[in-house]
C-alpha cells in the first residue's frame, strides 16, 4: 500500500517542487509515441498532385496538436498541478503488483492461445488467476476454472461457430 503523499506546497510559499512520478512517465511515453506518429506524418503528402487532400493531411494535424497537448500535460505532471484523487473511506490500498501479474497472465494467455487451444489455455488462465485472487477456496477455483472455460468454449464454438483453436486437444 502506498503512503498518501502530501499535496504540493501552496502557491503562496512559491516553492513548487518538480517531481517525476508515474504520471510523468506515462505522458513521457505518450509524447514519444505521438512524436513518432507526427514524424511519420511529415513524410506523407499534405495535398496530392491533383490538389486533393493527401494521406498526410489529417495525421499531420492530429500529430501536431497531439504533441503540443501531451507536452503541456507532461509539464503539468512535473509541476503536479493536477492532484491525484484522494483515497476515500473505503480505500483498500493500491495493488499494482496484482494488476501487473493479471496483465502478464493475459499476455501469456494470448501467446499460447493458438498453441494450447482455447479450452486448455482458458482453463489454465482461470485457474492461475483464481489461485492469485481467491486463494481461500481452492476447490471452488478448480471447479470454476475448468467449468467456466468449458462453458465459454461451448458457447463460442458450438453455439456461435466462432472457430476457436483446438490446440493440444485435436478431438475437439
Amino acid at each position, binding site marked *: 500500500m502506498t503512503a498518501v503523499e502530501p499535496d504540493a506546497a501552496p502557491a503562496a510559499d512559491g516553492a513548487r517542487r518538480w517531481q517525476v512520478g508515474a504520471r510523468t512517465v*506515462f*505522458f513521457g511515453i*505518450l509524447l514519444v509515441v*505521438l512524436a513518432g*506518429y507526427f514524424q*511519420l506524418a511529415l513524410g*506523407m*503528402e499534405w495535398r*496530392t498532385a491533383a*490538389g*486533393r*487532400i*493527401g*494521406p498526410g493531411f*489529417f*495525421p499531420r494535424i*492530429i*500529430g501536431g*496538436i*497531439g504533441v503540443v*497537448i*501531451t507536452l503541456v*500535460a507532461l509539464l*503539468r505532471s512535473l509541476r503536479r498541478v*493536477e492532484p491525484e484523487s484522494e483515497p476515500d473511506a*473505503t*480505500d*483498500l490500498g*493500491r*495493488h*499494482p503488483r*496484482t*494488476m501487473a501479474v*493479471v*496483465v502478464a497472465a*493475459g*499476455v501469456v*494467455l*494470448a*501467446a499460447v*492461445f*493458438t498453441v494450447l487451444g*482455447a479450452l486448455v489455455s*482458458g482453463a489454465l*488462465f*482461470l485457474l492461475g*488467476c*483464481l489461485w492469485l*485472487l*481467491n486463494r481461500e477456496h481452492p476447490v471452488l477455483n478448480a471447479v*470454476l476454472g475448468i467449468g*467456466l472455460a468449458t462453458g*465459454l*468454449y461451448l*458457447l*463460442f464454438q458450438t453455439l*456461435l*461457430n*466462432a472457430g*476457436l483453436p483446438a490446440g493440444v486437444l485435436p478431438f475437439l
Partner: protein
Amino acid sequence: MDVFADLGQGILALLTVANVLLLAAGVTLGMIVGVMPGLGPSAGLAVLLPLTFGLDPTGAIIMLAAVYYGAMYGGTITSVLINTPGESATVASTFDGYPLARQGRAGPALVIAAIASFVAGTVGAVLISIAAPITAAVASSFGPPELFLVVVAGLLTLIVIIGRNWLLGALSALIGFALATVGVDIGGGSQRYTFGSTELINGIDFIPVAIGLFGIGEILHTLWRGGHLERIGYFTVGSRGRAFWPSREDVRESRGPILRGSLLGFVVGTAPGAGATVASLMSYNLEKSVSRRPERFGKGAMAGLAGPEAANNAASAGAMVPLLTLGIPGSAATAVLIGGFLMWGLQPGPLLMEQNPEFAWGLIASMYLGNVMLLLVNIFCIPAFASIARVPFRVLAPVIMLLCVVGTYSVNGSTIEVMIMLACGVLGFFMRRYGMSPAALVIALVLGPLAEETLRQTMIISGGDFTIFVERTTSRVLLIAMVALVLLPALLPRIRRAIATRLAEIGRRRAPERTLEP
C-alpha cells in the same frame, strides 16, 4: 399516419421467434452486466459484441440495444442493495435507494424503480417514434459539407462529455483519431502506419479497442484499487411477501416524479453528450425542489428514487435520436452501439431511416417490447439478479478477462487483435488513472474516418475551397448550432443555477400549502 405504418412494419419485422428470443436474451444479459461489479453498459456492450456475430444485422442490433437499456436498469439494483452504482447514471439512485434498503424496503424500492424504468422507456419509445422521422427528414437533404459539419458537431459533443478537464479529454480524442488513421488511405490508396503488417492494412478494428478500453481497462482499474479484496455488505430482497410490493402511498408519491423524470430525461438525452447521468441528477434536484417534504430526500424518499430512475432510462431512449438520425454517439455506450452498426455495414445517420427503414423501425419497435420484457424480468427476477450482485469481483475479474480474449479472437481469428485489445486495456487503465477519457477516444475512433471521408468529398465538390461551408443555408445553420454547442458548457452552470433558484422558489411556495393539509 406514416409513423404508425412504419412502426407497424417495424413490429412485424421484429415479431419473429428468433428476434423475440434475442430481445429477451439481450435484456437479461444487460441486467446481468448491470449488476456485475466493475462493468458498466459500455464495457458490457463491448464485451458482448462478439456474441452477436453469427446473427443477422437486425437481430444483432436489437439484442445490443436490449443489452444497453437492460444494463441501465441493472445498475440500479446494486445502487439500492449495496450502495454502489453500476455506472454513473445510477449514482442518483443511491441517494434514496440505499436508505430505503436500510429501512428494510429494498423490495418496494426496486419494484418502483422497475416501474419507473418501464414508464420512462415507453414514453421514450413513443417520443423517439415521433422525433426520429422528423429529424431524419431534415437530415436527408444534407450533402457532404453538411455531413462533415454534423460529424464535427458530434466531435464537439466531446467538449460536453469531457467537462472541465478539456486538455486530457482532447488528448484522448486525438489518440482515437490517430488510431483511426492506421490502414489504407481511402482517398489515394496508400498505406499509413501499417509498418508492413498485412493485419493492419484494414486498419485497427473498433472491437478490440472498445473491449480493451472498457472491459479490460475497468477490470485492471478495479484490481489496482483493491476491488478483489472487497467484502460486499448487501441487503437482501425478501421473497414474495406483502412487504416486497410498494404501498399505495409509494405509488402515489412516485407518479409525478416518474412522469416529470421521463420527459426531462428524454429531452436531456437527445442533447448529445449530456446523457443519462446529467438527466438523473437534474431529476433528483428537480424532485427535491418541488417536493412538499424536501427534508425526506436522502433519507429514503420514494420520489428521490423514482424521478432519477425514470430520467436515466428516458435519457437512454433519447440518446437514440441523434444516434439513429445523425449518427452522433452522445456517450461511450452509444459509441459502442455505433461501432456495432458499422460492423454490420449499417451507416447510422440521415440516410439510415430512408435506406434501411425496416431495420431502423424494427429497432424502435423493439424498444416498446423490450420495455415490457424488462418490467417482467425485473419484477419477477429481482432476487435472482440480487444474488448475482453478490458474486465477488475476485471471481468475476478472470472470467470477464477470458471472455474478452475469446470474444476478441472470435472476430477475425487474430492473435494480434487480442494483443491490441490487451494493450488498449492497459492504456484504458492509465487513462482512467490519470483523468483521461476512454469514451472520447472511442467516439473519435468511430467518427474520425467519417470526418476524413466527408471532408475529402466536400473538397472535391468545392475544388478545395473552404468557403463552401458558409455558402449553403443548411451548412450555416449547422455552424450556428456548433457555436452554440461550444458555448453551452460555459452557459450551462448559469442556466442550471437559474433553474434551481426558480424551482426552490416554487418549493418554498408549496411548503405552506403542506402545513394546511390534515
